[in-house]
């Protein structure tokens, strides 16, 4: 099986979907000739032409809104927001329009659109090129939010997002783009949106997380295994709506739950995961549910020491896992 990087899996999924279905097209800033500022759409312009790989004016609300219109007609737009931080001008289109179209029209209209955006820190991107924005959208029924951790998941979930009949926000960790490599089948496959995935079986503590933090947890788990601590790791993959069944099962498995996000702590995805665990697993818990997250400051600063202080890393994760195991 070929090994490829996280971002190569993005490109391959887009390429295959555009080849499979003529209704699929890409739009965004610099996605055409340049192939994207991260090169996620590299080669698509040459292969499919400017009509299907559209360099849009620099205007995010139009990228989302024009995509919504085309999707309502029956196209399958894949819009790129250059950075998740710059999705904010499009929030009205995403929340007031895309999320509510099916519901408000009583199932008459729908928006089969995917919006991709690189998120996350650790790349010296400072306040406005580092944010995790998923919590902004994670109480908006009608939307789905996918945040894959591995190249295999990227390909299968991005293809599923493009084929989905409802709007999907697909957040890609920008530090994972070239850092994370993995085996990706050459054949056509999809993975189910809305399903979490056990990335490591274990019996002592349960870690529930998503995105790049999955890798930090896996690394920490290998170290802790040498100390005799056996960690169970659940990758949420879809952070909205959450896979409640998988969360409950994973929490009950060990009775000690650590939730991790790179986002600010208060109001984040893991707060909702914690609520699910406390509503359903009280008598199975052997320790309070623990949350490990970024500090509640607006965003990640530029200066390296401050960035490092904010950013999640394997050491922070390892410590939190050990503390919980020893509770």
């Amino acid at each position, binding site marked *: 099986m070929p090994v490829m990087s996280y971002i190569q899996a993005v490109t391959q999924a887009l390429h295959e979907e555009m080849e499979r279905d003529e209704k699929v*097209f890409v739009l965004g800033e610099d996605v055409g000739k340049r192939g994207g500022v991260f090169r996620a759409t590299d080669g698509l312009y040459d292969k499919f032409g400017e*009509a*299907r790989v*559209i360099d*849009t*004016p620099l*205007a995010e*609300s*139009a990228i*989302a*809104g*024009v*995509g*919504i*219109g*085309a*999707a*309502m*007609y*029956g*196209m399958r*737009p894949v819009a790129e927001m250059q950075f998740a931080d710059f999705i904010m*001008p499009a929030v*009205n*289109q995403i929340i*007031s*329009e895309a999320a*509510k*179209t*099916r*519901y*408000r*029209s*009583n*199932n*008459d*209209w*729908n928006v089969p659109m995917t919006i991709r955006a690189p998120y996350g820190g650790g790349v010296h991107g400072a306040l406005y090129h580092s944010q995790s924005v998923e919590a902004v959208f994670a109480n908006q*029924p*009608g939307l*789905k939010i996918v945040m894959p951790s591995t190249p295999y998941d990227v390909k299968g979930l991005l293809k599923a997002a493009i084929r*989905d*009949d*409802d709007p999907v926000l697909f957040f890609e960790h920008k530090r994972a783009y070239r850092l994370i490599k993995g085996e990706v089948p050459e054949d056509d496959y999809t993975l189910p949106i809305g399903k979490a995935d056990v990335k490591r079986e274990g019996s002592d503590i349960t870690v529930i997380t998503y995105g790049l933090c999955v890798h930090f947890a896996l690394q920490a788990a290998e170290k802790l295994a040498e100390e005799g601590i056996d960690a169970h790791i659940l990758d949420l993959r879809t952070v909205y709506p959450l896979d409640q069944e998988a969360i409950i099962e994973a929490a009950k498995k060990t009775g000690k739950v650590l939730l991790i996000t790179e986002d600010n702590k208060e109001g984040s995805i893991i707060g909702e995961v914690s609520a699910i665990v406390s509503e359903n697993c009280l008598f199975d818990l052997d320790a309070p549910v623990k949350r490990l997250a970024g500090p509640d400051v607006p965003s990640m600063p530029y200066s390296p020491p401050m960035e490092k202080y904010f950013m999640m890393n394997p050491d922070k994760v390892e410590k939190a896992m050990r503390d919980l195991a020893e509770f």
Partner: protein
Amino acid sequence: MTENRHQKLGLSDEEVLDMYRTMLLARRIDERMWLLNRSGKIPFVISCQGQEAAQVGASYALDREQDYVAPYYRDMGVVLSFGMTAKDLMLSGFAKAEDPNSGGRQMPGHFGQKSNRIITGSSPVTTQVPHAVGFALAAKMEKKNFVSLVTLGEGSSNQGDFHEGLNFAGVHKLPVIVMVENNKYAISVPLEKQLACEKVSDRAVGYGMPGYTVDGNDPLAVYEAVKGAADRARSGEGPTLIETVSYRLTPHSSDDDDRTYREREEVEEAKKKDALVTFKAYLQEVGVLTEEKDKELEEEMKSLINEATDYAEEAPYAEAESALKYVYAEDE
């Protein structure tokens, strides 16, 4: 003698009479809704009164078998022209299950009906502009011959989505017609506090498209402008911005009191230019409409609307628990 203007535009007597009939139907439904609201039967009304000529004139200039419209909340004249019925609108007014716009989920005036190519709308204004541009983009990509028409108020032309949508359409030369129904007020705020330029259509130059301002009380002038824009769009020449100038004859909505911000004399003055009066006079002068025919039309409207009202009032609401349906695609 009054000049016959509609023949010059290629419109038959039957066609202009049908336009008048649709304008009249919109007005009479709207008036009935106010009565129903004031008698406590429906919670909310938002009016088309004063804008029917622009709405119907524009719609009849399109191909109503294949073009798409993204109307805003006052566009009863547009949706009636595109195939929605008095019964449909009353079902929406009463928020009943059979309402084709939303099954009673949305307030009246939030139109949408896929079978008639009426694109679903929301309450935040101007979001429909990029949507119509997206439909036009699809037309271009799929090499289809349809155009999209999007309408909005002049206040909405200040929103970012107006700028972003028109710019996108201009850059990509898309077959979309943007029609601003300038009724002089954004709720209580008058035109001069909304725009620093003289006309909304002045803005077109910034998007590389032609901009026209026409008399919104004259359905034939609007028809001509939109027809020209649709021809341009279909021949690949791109988008057009059209401003129709008329006046909002009612308060903003049933929850507004316009006496707090405008003089009665101003409203009375505007009523003299009301298209329901002036277009009727035109049709009479050119011999298309007689007093007798007009009476017949009024009778027809009355019984149509009575029937629609009774039907909608009697019709069932959707099941309360159906509020849980259609968040995402469901297996039927």
